[in-house]
């Protein structure tokens, strides 16, 4: 009798739609096996009917046959079940879906690191009417154990060669400086980014000296405060440097240094939650899209895709939620390439626009922390050697952080985040000890590894929409600069989404189409 009520009274039309949950059956009638149970151990009443309510509630049929002997037991069981149905009892027809994302969202941001949160922040900040845009941030790992943001060394610099990169960094530094005005939440304590304004010092050998001079000219034009130093000036200012082989050095005087990325992440998270952005702990497994076959003005046939649904799978479960969305932002960092593949980007004959993949892949980089009692003093900037090794101070206790980017042949396997200590002994320490003789006596205390979301094409970010999948926007592939460009990139992507074009900083050289056209936006001398 009760089962009958469940079937007809609480059918899809009444409660199911409003609840908005899927327990393994989808709107199109596909049954994904029986995998809709939240581990409650109760199988669905009938798997061929798409119920959207909870399980059958109290079961009547597995109580066993009515035997005369256990009539009293039966009565007490029946009483218990009736009590659970009545108000105040444990059973309720409404299902708990708090662990699932909502059914609809205007924007779904894949990836909850600093870039994804920055896009969410600027979307909510630049929307025309408060509360106009519903944003959902999907993050697979809420402990951020593999996220590039928190494993990064945390540096920020303006010493780039592309004007766009310099402008991005300048705005980001201004954002960080006024972070307590941008990310203010009533009644929460102010953020302390622990910024060290010590600057970056790039050393150049003879071959790189002219490039460095040109770069500094561009940087000064954009407004960065950088000065060039000769080896004598370098020796006077930083007597602990061995200037042999150094022809020129560029030193950032202001607005350069390093800070705590975890604090920025938490500050963004807090602010973005207070602005009404929803967070979801889950993984994107599928995009459901539709295709439109169209013709260009010159008569070529082109297929435009539009993503309609994002399937978000819950952790440790087969349960997933299709989120209907208007726009998807790919800010998945080192895994952006995988997300792009899910959306069908790159599935086509090579050499065509359909066949152009997103060339972002994870690359593992090591960071070592060592102690050196006679090392450089408090004034030490982040020093970058021409060989690619770099180091900076960490704290007051003569500890230093550093590493080196490996050459293409020596790239470690990005399958895990294990640290290779021999890499330090063979590739990093010799260069450091040569450049700073005091580092000949050092002791490595700790080491960790993190991913670069490495753009194999030109090592610079990909920002903006995809030409064929019209509602996917990229904010990935920054190859080690993601943290320092995140606030500005977030604003740029939000502008493209809301206004249709870049308004403050023109990032057209970083659009996806450059991979098809072959126009590299390459930096000269990066770490």
């Amino acid at each position, binding site marked *: 009798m009760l089962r009958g009520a469940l079937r007809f009274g609480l059918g899809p039309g009444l409660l199911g739609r409003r609840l908005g949950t899927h327990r393994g059956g989808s709107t199109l009638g596909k049954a994904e096996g029986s995998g809709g149970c939240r581990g409650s151990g109760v199988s669905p009443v009938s798997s061929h009917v798409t119920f959207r309510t909870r399980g059958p509630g109290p079961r009547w049929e597995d109580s066993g046959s009515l035997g005369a002997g256990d009539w009293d037991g039966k009565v007490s069981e029946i009483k218990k079940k009736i009590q659970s149905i009545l108000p105040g009892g444990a059973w309720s027809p409404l299902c708990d879906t708090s662990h699932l994302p909502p059914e609809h969202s205007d924007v779904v941001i894949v990836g909850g690191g600093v870039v994804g949160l920055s896009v969410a922040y600027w979307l909510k900040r630049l929307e025309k009417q408060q509360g106009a845009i519903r944003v959902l941030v999907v993050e697979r790992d809420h*402990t951020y154990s593999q996220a590039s943001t928190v494993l*990064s060394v945390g540096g920020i610099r303006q010493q780039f060669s592309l004007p766009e990169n310099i402008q991005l960094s300048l705005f980001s530094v201004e954002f960080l400086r006024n972070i307590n005005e941008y990310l203010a939440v009533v009644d929460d304590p102010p953020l302390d980014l622990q910024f060290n*304004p010590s600057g970056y010092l790039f050393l150049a050998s003879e071959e790189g000296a002219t490039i460095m001079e040109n770069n500094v000219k561009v940087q000064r034009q954009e407004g960065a405060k950088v000065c060039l130093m000769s080896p004598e000036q370098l020796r006077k200012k930083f007597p602990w440097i061995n200037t042999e082989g150094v022809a020129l050095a560029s030193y950032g005087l202001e607005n350069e240094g390093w800070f705590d990325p975890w604090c920025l992440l938490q500050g963004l998270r807090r602010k973005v939650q207070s602005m009404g952005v929803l967070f979801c702990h889950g993984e994107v497994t599928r995009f459901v899209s539709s295709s439109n076959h169209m013709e260009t003005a010159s008569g070529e046939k082109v297929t435009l895709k539009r993503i309609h649904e994002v399937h978000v799978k819950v952790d440790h479960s087969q349960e997933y939620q299709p989120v209907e969305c208007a726009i998807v932002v790919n800010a998945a960092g080192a895994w952006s390439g995988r997300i792009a593949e899910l959306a069908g980007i790159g599935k086509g004959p090579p050499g065509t626009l359909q066949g152009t993949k997103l060339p972002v892949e994870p690359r593992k980089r090591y960071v070592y922390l060592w102690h050196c009692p006679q090392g450089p*003093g*408090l004034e030490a900037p982040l020093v970058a050697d021409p060989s690619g090794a770099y180091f900076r101070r960490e704290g*007051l206790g003569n500890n230093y952080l550093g590493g080196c980017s490996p050459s293409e042949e020596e790239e470690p396997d990005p399958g895990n985040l294990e640290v290779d200590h021999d890499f330090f002994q063979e590739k990093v320490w010799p260069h450091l000890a040569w450049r700073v003789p005091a580092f000949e006596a050092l002791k490595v205390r700790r080491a960790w590894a993190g991913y670069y979301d490495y753009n194999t094409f030109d090592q610079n970010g990909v920002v903006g929409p995809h030409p064929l999948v019209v509602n996917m926007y990229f904010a990935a592939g920054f190859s080690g600069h993601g943290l320092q460009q995140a606030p500005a990139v977030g604003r740029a992507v939000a502008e493209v989404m809301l206004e249709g074009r870049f308004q403050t900083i023109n990032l057209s050289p970083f659009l996806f189409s450059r991979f098809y056209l072959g126009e590299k936006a390459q930096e000269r001398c990066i770490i």
Partner: protein
Amino acid sequence: MAAPRASLRLVAPVWNGGTSGIRGLSRAVDPEGSQRKGRALLQFLADRFYDVEAVRGYLLQKQVLKVLQKNRSFTYIKERYGPYVAGASFILKQGGAVKFQDKEWMRPNGRGLSGELWKLREVPVEAVDASGCAINYQGLDNLLALRELQSLSLRCCPHVDDWCLGRLHQLADSLRELSLAGCPRISERGLACLHHLRNLRRLDISDLPAVSNPGLTQILVEEMLPDCEVLGADRAQSLKLGPEEQPRDTASSPIPA
């Protein structure tokens, strides 16, 4: 970062000791008990009503705008009377004192800027006493134009932080005396960029509440500026505090997420 979650933990004691809530920005040094109770009620209301939250957000914004307004650029005066007069009028408006070369200290009197200020167009400013003024990063523009400044006192300025110290390198040629005592936002990271000031002979870094280890910081700053006399925390006092400071210094303690 070495231990990213640990650094967040390290920050917390500074927060509680320093500003209690964003509103405590200018009253960073001393929250009183009764004000704390009032704040608890407001917090309770703001957690439950959007209107209260919006009003409080608006009042917060107004405070921030007030500081910004005080620190606007004096471009008109700069064009008409030169950078020295502009800088001097900025300091006097904030409530500080200015000393021109070969003249006496000028302090703000109740009736606005004195008439003789406008005649000092060519006279460089030698010393500035900006104690307690609400100078921030933008307002420092007006000060940095004073290229012959020899003595600068930023004692107990509530908005001077590490970012501002990063700008002081522009005064490296002339600055000989600098006082940062009592500024609640300056930490040892900002002090690291004072190495540009190679002509500095006197530096006062006592009473900086945001510096985590005053004794060690003073030693490092003395090493960094060998020609400079550094006045800092009493070293004997900091040695006494040594054992209690230990837990904060060791970054190796495992921090639960």
